[in-house]
């Protein structure tokens, strides 16, 4: 079970006598407290999520012939969705491929790092955790812009790769899919490392000793004990990386080219430049629906319900 259900509230039985009556009072007080605590969050969600979400859904169904100047009419135009898929399927597909590759790279880079911090860092543990989140002290935009310099045509990285033949003499890194994926990987790595660290750090070290005692070599012990016990972190980390990466447009805009546009770039263009609100809204909805469907499928597949 991924989520521990809270203990059942005390059952009120009619014939339980005076002590039960006291409990009933307690229970009522407690449950009201719970509702009061929910209130600020519920209001926040209502104002900043439910209302905009309603607006987004409504916009996505507006008359596709309308414009900002002429105004829009609610025509329940499901057609917007079909048009969006037909016109932007490349960008949608590319978004998921780039996000998927970046997520895999984050996992491959992040797992050993999180493992080292959790089990091997000793007194350097806190310092290393600070270093993991240190990039957040600088703005997302600045960090991505600096990757333009790192991968620019005259950068040491490019000239070194050209020198050793990894890259053709006129080859580039900037404005390629490689640069976009590299930027995504870099920017979302901490979102992978932190949940992985949290789940690895919780693992009782004696379980790993027990696996060794029961004839598991270190590699088998990792595969059979450590990795399964850290699956909650793997699932959380991949979701926290994949979801924002799939909707990201900064990396594709600053590090990519028109050929590496992601769906986020399209939505941004449609909203800010083209002013095609119904199309932008329906594309946003499609992105959201696809992500929710994938997450649902993934979480079921990963079997988090069976994880402790």
């Amino acid at each position, binding site marked *: 079970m991924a989520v521990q259900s809270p203990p059942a509230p005390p059952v009120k039985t009619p014939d339980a006598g005076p002590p039960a009556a006291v409990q009933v009072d307690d229970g009522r007080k407690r449950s009201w407290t719970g509702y009061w605590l929910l209130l600020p969050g519920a209001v926040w969600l209502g104002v900043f999520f439910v209302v905009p979400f309603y607006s987004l859904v409504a916009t996505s169904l507006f008359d596709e012939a309308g414009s900002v100047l002429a105004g829009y009419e609610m025509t329940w135009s499901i057609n917007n969705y079909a048009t969006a898929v037909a016109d932007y399927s490349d960008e949608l597909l590319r978004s998921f491929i780039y996000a998927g590759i970046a997520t895999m790279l984050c996992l491959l880079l992040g797992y050993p790092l999180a493992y080292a911090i959790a089990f091997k860092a000793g007194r350097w543990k806190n310092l290393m955790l600070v270093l993991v989140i240190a990039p957040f002290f600088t703005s997302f935009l600045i960090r991505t812009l600096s990757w333009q310099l790192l991968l620019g045509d005259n950068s040491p990285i490019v000239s070194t790769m050209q020198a050793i033949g990894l890259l053709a003499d006129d080859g580039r890194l900037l404005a390629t899919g490689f640069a976009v994926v590299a930027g995504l990987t870099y920017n979302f790595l901490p979102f992978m490392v932190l949940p992985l660290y949290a789940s690895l750090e919780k693992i*009782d070290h*004696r*379980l790993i*000793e*027990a*696996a*060794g*005692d*029961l*004839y*598991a*070599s270190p590699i*088998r*012990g990792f595969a*059979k*004990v450590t990795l*399964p*016990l850290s699956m909650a972190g793997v699932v959380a980390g991949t979701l926290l990386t994949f979801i924002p990466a799939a909707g990201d447009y900064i990396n594709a805009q600053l590090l990519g080219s028109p050929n590496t546009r992601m769906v986020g770039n399209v939505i941004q263009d449609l909203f800010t430049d083209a002013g095609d609100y119904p199309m932008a809204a329906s594309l946003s909805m499609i992105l959201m629906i696809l992500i929710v469907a994938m997450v649902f499928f993934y979480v079921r597949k990963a079997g988090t319900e*069976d*994880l*402790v």
Partner: protein
Amino acid sequence: MTVTDTSDTEADTPASGGTRDLRLESLTKEFATFTAVDDIDLVVAQGSFFALLGPSGCGKTTTLRMVAGLERPTAGRILLGDLDVTTLKPYQRPVNTVFQSYALFPHLTVFENVAFGMRRQGKKDVDAEVDKMCELVELGGQTAKKPAQMSGGQQQRVALARALINKPEVLLLDEPLGALDLKLRRQMQVELKRIQLEVGLTFVHVTHDQEEAMTMADTIAVMNKGVIEQIGPPSELYENPRTTFVANFLGQSNLIGGEVTDRDGADLVVDVHGNRLGAERERAGTDSGRVWVGVRPEKVSMSAAGDEHGDGVNCLPGGTVSDVSFIGVSTLYLVRMPWDQELTVFEQNTGARALFEPGAAVDLHWQRGHAFLLDADQDASAGVETVDGR
């Protein structure tokens, strides 16, 4: 095939006198700031139930972890029969451990927990063996559960089954009953002993509970501060402790200061605050100079001051009862002696005479053969259980 069948493992190694005793030779483990285990030598006979007994921090768990391969010794060797396992990795040793907190895999069912060792070794008949083992520890029908769904006692059985199924040459038990409540602990002590006799494996049991060690073990090694104080069968350790630590840690002892003054045949004569007491020389740790005369509280009997007593009986007159605790089957007396020491007496409530009241003047006596003598260089309070310690 039953679990007692170890012919497979014996066939793997060339005949070598046939014995698969566990031997520790000059085993030492030093940590940065202290020596946890200090040059111990130990032989655990094949098929025996061996207890390592001592207070927390005495080095018994470190010793166990070295046998399991979870700690690397600083010096010394660990041998299983003729096989030197000192440098083998844990997963290469024919040794399994029942961990103190069980360390069951929370993501696996009971069945998979028990099957873990067999699967890693690529053995066959996993299903049948697991079922058989779960029957042995009375877990039949529970194998689909996760460890978290089971009680402490059941988890303990899973941990035991998970280790036993591999038929290790030595099964290590690290305070396996420490987390159970008293009643369950007594029950599991009997159970563990039954299982050990049934499977015939060598059990090495680490505990700080002297009663547990005496109930279950054939041989006990009492450890203190990284060294072994004494090894022997429970009755021998109890009746004839060789150090004040053993005398106090294993049960209770009255230790009274005295001096050896004379010999009387096979006995030594000891002067204790002006009283001539006798003690058998073969029960004496030292035969001259200052000594502690030790006697167990239940070996001491009481009589009203001045009553006659027979020959060959040691008598300490002049005591005053200072405290009486009625326990039911017995009564615990504290008796203040003229030299201001309080001695403890356990008396069975046979009803032969009325209980003494606090303030009563009494004489204490015991059979000569019941006293033991220890070198007076030792601290008389070593190993005494304190309220906060163990």
